[in-house]
């Protein structure tokens, strides 16, 4: 047995693409258009409960009624509520590849509205990340129109 050569082990690899299409719909497309054309965040305020619906949707997530047509501009500044530090680039299912850079993800409380949104942070040094830090969106200058998390590159720390 001792002189027997070691067995070769086979790894079975496969790479199966799952292409599919999803339509952003009426309300989300309006937000994406505003991002693309005007570099601003907009959403709808529910006509029943008067709260911001995020992401914009035809049906209010809180009261489950039609959210109406009251579109308002939302601040692209906010405060970090919590964050997750990642050591590797995340997968981008839009293109089926890994992103070229890793960024921490954070829940951001946008100013003057009840919107908590998970987005990327520019700051990669985990010692400098802390809850409550003030951040502002950095918009992509060219090639916007790929959706919200594409048009906003990340949130940059600001001093206030």
């Amino acid at each position, binding site marked *: 047995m001792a002189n027997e050569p070691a*067995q*070769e*082990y*086979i*790894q*079975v*690899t*496969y*790479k*199966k*693409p*799952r*292409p*599919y*299409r*999803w*339509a*952003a*719909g*009426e309300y*989300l*497309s309006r937000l*994406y*258009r505003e991002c693309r054309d005007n570099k601003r965040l907009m959403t709808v305020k529910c006509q029943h409960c008067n709260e911001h619906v995020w992401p914009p949707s035809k049906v209010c997530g809180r009261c489950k009624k039609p959210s109406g047509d009251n579109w308002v501009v939302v601040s692209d500044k906010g405060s970090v509520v919590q964050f997750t530090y990642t050591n590797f680039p995340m997968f*981008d*299912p*839009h*293109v*089926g*590849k890994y*992103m*070229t*850079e890793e960024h921490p993800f954070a829940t951001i409380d946008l100013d003057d509205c009840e919107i908590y949104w998970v987005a990327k942070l520019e700051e990669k040094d985990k010692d400098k990340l802390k809850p409550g830090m003030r951040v502002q969106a950095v918009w992509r200058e060219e*090639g916007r*129109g*790929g*959706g919200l998390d*594409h048009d906003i*590159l990340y949130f940059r720390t600001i001093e206030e």
Partner: protein
Amino acid sequence: MTERTVEILEDSDRFVFPWQLAIPNTYPAGVVGSKFLIELRDNKKIKGIKCPECNQVYVPPRSTCKYCFGELSELVDVSDKGTLVTYAVSYEPTPVQPVEGTPVIYGIVKLDGADTGFVHMLGEVDPKQLEIGMRVKAVFKTKKKRVASILDIKYFKPLKI
């Protein structure tokens, strides 16, 4: 960051995203699974594994008998010819099919000397001529193209008697 493609619907200016969710996967074939695939690659032979207790021959081989749960190690040769147990013809192309082009004919073949069905594809046959119980024979790829994969067998073709 990688660039995204987006379709804009005419008239309504709405966004449609063509997504590309790739699921790359690797798994180890295991002890007997590796031996099975290596035999396909090196010797063009299909191996089964025999349970001496239950007198069953499994193709492809597995390390545990499904009846007595005994550990199996006795690899045996099975024929590359067999009988078609059942089949399905797929005319709709999907991104997950193992080969290019349609129709893809999947079949379960009970190889001579085996007690289980072996799932593979059928080729060199008109789907209309398929018949349960027909005799088929494995067609292997050329030596250069064999890479210890289940697709080292190209397909099973009808055996002309």
